[in-house]
């Protein structure tokens, strides 16, 4: 007999997290309006900070967000030359980067970067708050195998980083020092070989534990609380609102060309973005009740 864990004792159910992440990502990517994207990013950051386990750190995520936003803005400024407010100018005969650098391209690149930040923050709880087996539990039954493959892939990413650091440190202890791009072969080749070996070992371990022999079972199945229901309902409604307005052709985007302008705002959509922060309130409520 399977025990049922109530999610208000142990946090939100894994499936609630998955739905919230998908809904928040849908909202962030369904509009090019930087105000909505910024609100989604802030809401997702609040949720992440609220539920982040004490042993987890955000440094690598913060670096990834900074890189993604900065890269998007930089590429747009360098490659696009539209807009009327010229900030700087390069000779037009320079390939790709030649032409005007405008405030409009900077603003649009920033909006693109903000969308990436919002989307990354929306999926961050799946790796920083949930355990890999929680991600598997969150996937519907027919997609059980896909969930396992997804969780395994996520695990391999961090494993690749750990292997890289270990091999680099070992090579340094042997006297290796980085001297140009070609010298990194001495690190990257062992890292790739070790990763392949780890993958084979993981596959053998999964086979030994019965992978492919039927549905995955668990001792305790996560239950649903009223907070799970509220979070799922509210976030799905917010995503549906954005998607339906997008399909209906409503003006939910922002486009700074040819001249910068204030993004159009709809108060209902602002409230929808704000509603994505509901999981943060769920945790505060639980803490206030002494749980």
């Amino acid at each position, binding site marked *: 007999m399977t025990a049922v864990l109530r999610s208000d004792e142990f946090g939100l159910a894994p499936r609630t997290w998955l739905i919230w992440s998908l809904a928040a990502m849908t909202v962030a990517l369904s509009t090019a309006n930087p105000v909505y994207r910024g609100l989604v990013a802030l809401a997702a950051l609040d949720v992440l900070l609220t539920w982040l386990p*004490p042993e987890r750190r955000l440094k690598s995520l913060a670096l990834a967000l900074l890189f993604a936003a900065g890269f998007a803005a930089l590429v747009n400024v360098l490659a696009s030359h*539209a807009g009327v407010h010229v900030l700087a100018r390069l000779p037009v005969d320079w390939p790709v980067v030649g032409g005007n650098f405008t405030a409009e391209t900077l603003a649009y690149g920033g909006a693109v970067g903000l969308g990436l930040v919002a989307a990354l923050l929306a999926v961050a709880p799946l790796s920083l708050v949930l355990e890999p087996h929680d991600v598997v539990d969150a996937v519907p039954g027919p997609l059980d195998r896909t969930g396992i493959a997804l969780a395994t892939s996520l695990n391999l990413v961090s494993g690749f980083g750990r292997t890289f650091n270990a091999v680099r440190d070992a090579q340094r202890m042997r006297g290796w020092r980085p001297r140009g791009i070609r010298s990194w072969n001495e690190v990257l080749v062992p890292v790739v070989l070790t990763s392949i070996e780890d993958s084979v070992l993981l596959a053998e371990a999964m086979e030994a534990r019965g992978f492919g022999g039927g549905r995955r079972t668990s001792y305790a199945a996560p239950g649903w609380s009223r907070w799970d229901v509220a979070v799922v309902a509210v976030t799905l409604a917010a995503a549906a609102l954005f998607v339906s307005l997008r399909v209906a052709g409503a003006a939910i985007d922002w486009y700074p060309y040819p001249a910068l302008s204030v993004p159009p705002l709809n108060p209902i959509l602002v409230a929808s973005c704000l509603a994505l922060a509901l999981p943060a309130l769920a945790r505060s409520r639980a803490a206030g009740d002494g749980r």
Partner: protein
Amino acid sequence: MPGLGRRIAVAATLAVGLAVAASVVPAPGSPLVASCAGAGPNHAALVVEHGSGSVVTRCVAFDAASVTGEQLLDSSGVAWSGQTFGGFGEAVCAMDEEPAQYVSCPGKDGYWAVFVATGGGEWQLSPVGISSLKLGDGDAEGFRYVPVSGDTAPPQPAAGVCGGAAASSPARAGAAAPTASTPQSPAQSGGIDAAMLAAALAAVVLAGLAVVRLSAARRRAP
């Protein structure tokens, strides 16, 4: 942190309430538009100002409560061609034979800037394409062919196009062209200030919560 959830809930509720309230702020009342050419109970003005300074005006009548800027342009009889830009919508590339030919849109020398005047107000630079632009009774849609660099000046006022009391814009002082006022969303005119306020309030609440969480995490850290 005892009570934090309640405070956040109150702040969030206020923000949501403000946002919802802003959505029902009525738009400024449409002015009375006297005898306008065409048939239909609603009327909107069209002003097209060429780079040479020549102006073409039309008054368009329609039955629906609102029309898009593209529909208004189509109904006006002014020849135009455009191009769709993703979420921005339809942009005007050439109108009334200006430019006579083009190879890129917007052009390298000039482009058609789109303006809207809601309920007899001033011209505002449109942040969306004409296919996404909504116009109601008493509104006006304006175009001006402007150079790619420099200020985006609005076209001549739309007052009188639909029989007298239509949209107006600041009077031109001498030969100097007026600059466009702070652009706003025409579709949200009347509610945008409250919407922006709600968005700012929401951002402050969310950022405040993030700071509180970060501080708490830092205190817990060994």
